[in-house]
């Protein structure tokens, strides 16, 4: 009869045997497909931009027509409201200036629109710059749990079921500093605003897995989650709907260009939920 130690030793030795190198042909096939995808995406983007421009012209013409004073009847006609231009779905990658709609229910409880200027990148919201240094970002997150300790976060998950519980958990969270919660509105919905900061000199290597984590992906799924890095400020707006919670978040860094921070606030001001 083998002991547990024997079995472990034998299994480890056995696993060490066998192939390790990925053949070049497989890597080449991957990179070829990536290039082809990127080219197709660029072509689609150009086509989409042309299509959006064409639709915009038609919308303007239609709106102009419906708003023209009628020549028949008495007192002139009352124009019908001009239709709202259709917001484009959020792309992954560079965004043309315009209004975008986010409806992925893994990201948000309600669809929302936001208007971005030139130079921003899509994905799960809008970001500008290098997020590993001085980039700024607006995104949303569904939250079911938070960590009681953002530095030594392993095994500290706390479930949260409503705004009061989430705000209380955020307020009690150890490992970083935070502002006093403020009741406000965001995108037309009631919200509670809290700002988290981590000192630029903070040594994250002392924390679990070398990062400071505020919450995991919903579920909880600890394969992902939101980290806060030294010198970063994350502002969250907590929103609740039917017992589910989400946050709208803005992220700025200590060295983020002031112009980018101002533009981020501008985008935030355009955000509108569609409850």
């Amino acid at each position, binding site marked *: 009869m083998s002991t*547990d130690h024997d079995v472990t030793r034998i299994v*480890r030795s056995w696993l060490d045997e066998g*192939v390790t190198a*990925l053949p070049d042909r497989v890597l080449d096939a991957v990179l070829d497909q*990536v290039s082809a995808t*990127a080219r197709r995406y660029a072509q689609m983007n150009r086509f989409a931009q042309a299509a959006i421009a064409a639709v915009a012209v038609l919308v303007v013409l239609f709106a102009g027509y419906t708003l023209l004073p009628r020549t028949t009847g008495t007192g002139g006609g009352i124009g019908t409201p001009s239709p709202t231009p259709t917001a484009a779905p959020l792309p992954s990658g560079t965004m043309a200036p315009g209004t975008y709609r986010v409806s992925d229910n893994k990201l948000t409880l309600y669809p929302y629109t936001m208007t971005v200027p030139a130079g921003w990148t899509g*994905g799960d919201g809008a970001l500008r710059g290098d997020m590993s240094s001085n980039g700024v970002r607006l995104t949303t997150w569904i939250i079911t749990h938070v960590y009681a300790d953002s530095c030594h976060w392993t095994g500290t998950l706390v479930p949260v079921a409503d705004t009061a519980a989430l705000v209380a958990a955020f307020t009690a969270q150890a490992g970083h500093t935070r502002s006093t919660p403020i009741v406000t509105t965001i995108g037309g919905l009631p919200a509670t605003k809290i700002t988290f900061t981590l000192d630029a000199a903070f040594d994250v290597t002392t924390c679990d897995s070398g990062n400071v984590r505020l919450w995991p992906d919903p579920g909880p799924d600890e394969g992902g989650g939101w*980290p806060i890095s030294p010198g970063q400020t994350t502002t969250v707006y907590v929103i609740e709907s039917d017992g589910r919670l989400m946050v709208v978040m803005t992220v700025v860094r200590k060295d983020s260009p002031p112009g980018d921070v101002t533009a981020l606030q501008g985008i935030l001001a355009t955000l509108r939920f569609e409850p």
Partner: protein
Amino acid sequence: MDTTLVTRAQNGDEGAFASLAVAVGDRLHAVAYRILRDTDLAEDATQQALLNVWQDLPQLRDPARFDAWSYRLLVRACYAEGRKTRRWTPNLRLLPADEPMAADGFDLVAHRDQLERGFRRLSIDHRAVVVLHHYLDMPLDRVAETLGVPAGTVRSRLHHAMRGLRAALDADARPAAREAAQ
């Protein structure tokens, strides 16, 4: 992993992605092979996982989690490859007669077939835990994080898997022991 490289790739930089793929390709392939026990399936799983990395990178919210995230995509690709074929073709390998024994004296050659059979009886879920923990030396909490399952589930899967492998080894040892007793 260099998070700057990850961020550049997230923003659509093909060159950065190529560097990432080169950096992680061997590691992903080695893990896929050990989970699937088949070279062709492992290559297909690795290729699919790398393509999924490119496609889903913009959704990766924390570049520092790239390694764990890429392993998760790989394990998913292994599930998909495993489903494609109900019966996996074993890789036949000629063993040289003078293959060295393990340094501490036990004869790994004698255990290979039993381990291979025992391992193939395990589900992909169980294999993934064994490989991440015993091949990559990942602590169990990180395995749980990588696979997106509770730590208790990982411990249970590992326990079940190792019990199965131990049974495979002991089953082979039993007839020999009986013969020796006669």
